[in-house]
């Protein structure tokens, strides 16, 4: 491998190390040290970090389709939300008779809107295994059908981006409808337990963080393996010159579909991990603006680098957390300003900056055009 890959490897290694320590140390400290110890991580931090990590996973999934396959998906949030809803439905079913109306079958929101029986698509969600399957299958299937149609018709570029946005927007409106049977605007909330354990207990929180961290590390390694495989190179080639790849005998649409579905499932997994940690899933996760924000994370971190997406997602969300508390009236100025500065000063995102520190590399215009 050449030098550039080596430096990449170093950064990879440090990101992995950081992730591993967060994943292991924080739950450990949270459980082992007493609350007043300096080493203790509060439940607040645990769930916050858990949330960041799910966002990182989501960002990672987008970087696979956008960074490598060049498909700017403006609806990645839809897959995240679908995974989240699948998990949410499982958690709702776990409430059982502990709902306010004490109905063993129906979630509360169905009871007070006079539903009499569980809609068929809620069947099976009382089963954890089935639900986990749906966490991957629901977004995967949607991505498959949508992608199959779109890629086969050779919808590309902004046209694809905008129809993915239309997709998530349509789902947003659909899930808002109470008739859909997903709790309308309020969504699914007030979960009680997961696999029989109280979802609000510190131990479960820590385990969830652990699971999220492990998933993220696993996903990062998997993604890295994929982009370094020949499939990864084909996909990069498709990004830059789709039609040329066809003449090499590759079925471009299948490769795009493969990555698209893979990323959708990854996003679904992120959603499923997100829901028990934040305690609510509702249609606003489908909002086009949310999906746009994912693009922003990846762009800030550095597109097409995998770990850049992780860094971007964590940093932007951390900044949000801090700023909304520190300067509730002016944080948008800071965030907006930061986005502008990042684009102007760090053309390849934060990772680009890091890399240039490590080793100046010959710049190559991504579009192949002349430098300005």
């Amino acid at each position, binding site marked *: 491998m050449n030098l550039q890959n080596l430096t990449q490897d170093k950064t990879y290694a440090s990101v992995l190390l950081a992730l591993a320590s967060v994943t292991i140390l924080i739950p450990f400290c949270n459980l082992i040290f007493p609350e007043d110890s300096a080493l203790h991580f509060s439940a607040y931090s645990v769930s916050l970090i858990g*949330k960041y990590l799910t966002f990182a996973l989501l960002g990672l999934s987008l970087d696979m389709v956008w960074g490598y396959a060049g498909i700017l998906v403006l609806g990645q949030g839809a897959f995240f939300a679908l995974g989240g809803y699948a998990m949410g439905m499982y958690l709702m079913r776990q409430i059982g008779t*502990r709902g306010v109306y004490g109905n063993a079958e129906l979630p509360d929101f169905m009871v007070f809107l006079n539903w009499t029986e569980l809609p068929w698509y809620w069947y099976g969600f009382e089963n954890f295994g089935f639900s986990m399957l749906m966490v991957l299958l629901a977004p995967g299937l949607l991505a498959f059908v949508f992608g199959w149609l779109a890629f086969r018709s050779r919808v590309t570029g902004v046209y694809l981006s905008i129809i993915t946005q239309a997709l998530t927007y349509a789902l947003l409106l659909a899930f808002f409808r109470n008739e859909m049977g997903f709790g309308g605007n309020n969504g699914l909330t007030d979960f009680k337990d997961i696999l029989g354990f109280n979802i609000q207990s510190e131990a479960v929180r820590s385990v969830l963080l652990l699971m999220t961290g492990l998933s993220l590390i696993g996903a990062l390694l998997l993604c890295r393996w994929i982009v370094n495989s020949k499939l990864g190179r084909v996909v990069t080639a498709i990004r830059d010159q789709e039609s040329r790849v066809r003449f090499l005998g590759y079925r471009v649409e299948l490769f795009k579909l493969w990555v698209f579905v893979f990323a959708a499932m990854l996003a679904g997994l992120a959603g499923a991990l997100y829901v028990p940690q934040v305690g609510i899933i509702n249609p*606003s996760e489908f909002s086009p603006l949310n999906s746009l924000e994912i693009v922003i994370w990846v762009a800030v971190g550095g597109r097409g680098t995998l770990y850049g997406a992780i860094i971007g997602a964590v940093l932007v969300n951390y900044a949000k957390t801090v700023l909304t508390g520190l300067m509730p*009236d002016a944080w948008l100025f800071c965030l907006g300003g930061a986005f502008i500065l990042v684009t102007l000063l760090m053309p390849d995102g934060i990772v680009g900056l890091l890399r240039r520190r490590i080793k100046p590399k010959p710049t190559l215009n991504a579009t192949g055009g002349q430098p300005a």
Partner: protein
Amino acid sequence: EDTIKVGVLHSLSGTMAISETTLKDTMLMLIDEQNKKGGLLGKKLEAVVVDPASNWPLFAEKARELITKDKVSAIFGCWTSVSRKSVLPVIEELNNILFYPVQYEGEESSKNVFYTGAAPNQQAIPAVDYLMNDLKVQRWVLAGTDYVYPRTTNKILEAYLKAKGVKPADIMINYTPFGHSDWQSIVADIKKFGSAGKKTAVVSTINGDANVPFYKELGNQGIKAEDIPVVAFSVGEEELSGMDTKPLVGHLAAWNYFMSVDTTKNAAFIQQWKDYIKNPKRVTNDPMEAHYIGFNMWVKAVEKAGTTDPDAVQKAIIGVEFPNLTGGTAKMLPNHHISKPVLIGEIQEDGQFATVWQTNKVVDGDAWSDFLPDSKPIIADWTAPINCGNYNTKTKKCSGQNY
């Protein structure tokens, strides 16, 4: 510790900032005022303001931050029901207190939440009674934004109307998405529905931003309040200040407070607000009063309990009374809702409401509607021996409380 911290959890950015920013300022004013009076339990109050940015999961996160990081003694916040639902598990888990100041769909009573806005029986039902009895309305349009509050309210109203003998053909229900801005067809439909020769009224649970284009369209299509009055549950003085009120004159709203109500207390409150916000044109509205009442009840309860400990305050606050700005006395009920007067007003050209009807005594908030079959047997009572937010009087069981 030398201060008592109070959390303020209202969106200052995003779609809900339009409504919620005012409530943040109200809380700052109230806390300021209390400090001028010497604080509470000999300590100064300190407001901790955060911005959940109209993002529902962020509400939960910020609530947790306020409680665990900032160690607030109570939180005043939320506007939409979904934000409250998002915060609820956190508040319950960490056993803190939330004062929720907005009218809502009911069907909830948490140990940790105090509902100072109207329950459906304190707003919707009286408004319909007024339309039916005083305006002799026979045909009904229930128009709402498609989310849980309008859905539930309309469910309740539909059941109520049918119980009063209104035929299904005389009820038209219509839902629109959030921020809906093209009302041409719907207003045309309403016009058609209302031209069948029977007196028709629109009961509007249309939320926030969708109202401006809705009323503009009503005006332009020539629907006058004299012909088809619209009674709204989400349009207050604040919303009116952002609209061209000319075409709205005569349409109605039902609230528990109007700025125009002429009482000494209200005049003082309005003056205080204008001084505080340094803008003589600013208006007051119903959720502001709800916070005003809620905050003062909390102060009284803390003084009564001698501590800000949530458990003690939760106990102490039940039964606490505090005068409304519009006359009469609000009382914290065992179901964590309060008693309020109900007022119906007509919109005037200056953006104020002229009260045209009002209950002659305060109405107790009812957490569980008597017009929904499943919630009819349920009551909330947070005093011994029931101590439950959803006690089923038939099965004699308390369901779903995990503490």
